[in-house]
């Protein structure tokens, strides 16, 4: 039975859940945005560049992966639109980023449920890179 109690419970849960997540999301967002204003992200993309051919991707695509891993899919797509990519390259980057993106924010969120963040990040990065290598070999 749906009563006013149902709505009260829903709104209550909305408030507590939003608060729980905001406590995590806001600080992380500010830190990563700060990093995006420093040369740190670009420097890291440069370090990754030599390894990109194992994934069948051009060197500049490393910036898309780094932006996706640290910030979000939207930032990565922003970079992707500036690169001339083939269908195969788009599919490889898509799978890699779908498996692994917005790591700081999403890991912080998943840690709120009590699980170990390091394990979650390790799984995602490993699966992402592995799927890139396998896809490059398959298609």
């Amino acid at each position, binding site marked *: 039975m749906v009563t006013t109690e149902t709505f009260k419970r*829903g709104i209550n849960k909305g408030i507590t859940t939003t608060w729980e997540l905001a406590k995590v999301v806001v600080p992380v967002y500010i830190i990563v945005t700060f990093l995006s204003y420093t040369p740190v992200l670009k420097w890291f993309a440069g370090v990754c560049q030599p390894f990109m051919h194992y994934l069948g991707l051009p060197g500049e695509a490393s910036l898309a992966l780094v932006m996706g891993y640290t910030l979000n899919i939207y930032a990565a797509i922003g970079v992707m639109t500036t690169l001339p990519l083939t269908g195969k390259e788009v599919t490889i980057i898509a799978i890699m980023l*779908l498996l692994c993106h917005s790591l700081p924010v999403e890991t912080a969120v998943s840690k709120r449920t009590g699980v170990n963040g390091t394990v979650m990040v390790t799984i995602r990065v490993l699966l992402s890179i592995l799927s890139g290598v396998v896809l490059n070999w398959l298609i």
Partner: protein
Amino acid sequence: MDYAAFLKEAASGSLKQVLLMAAIIFPLMLVLEIAKDLNVMDKLSMMLHPLMRLFKISHSGAVPLMAGLIFGISYGAGVIIDAAKSGELDYREMYLINIFLIICHSLFEDTALFVVLGANGVFLIVSRLLLAIIVTLIFSRWKKLIVQNAGMHGAGGVESRHA
């Protein structure tokens, strides 16, 4: 470094992020509560019951999993936190649902972004689901992979943290 631009982007970006989450969490929680009282979510998440049995998770785990698959990891996590507080899920079950969701979540929204760029959507969805099922299955059978957080043991991990 352009501090003014940074402050502006950090402030407006994080506020937007929270508002965006609230805009989805509030309706989601309302819909979930209504669905709960009408027993709808039970029926929808029943589709996931075979998966729950495969992972040896109690059927109540299907609800946060369904929420995460459709609405994304943050919202799935919201439902998981809620379920853990009410004692419906133990630590192992929460852990496995998390493993599944970090690999595969907001199935439709995220995929659509790459389809626009020319990727094959069906391929993306199917391979992600399969990978999530395989990895979660491995974790569900190999106890050593379930890493305990410091100060948390077994059931009610979140409960003890928030107590």
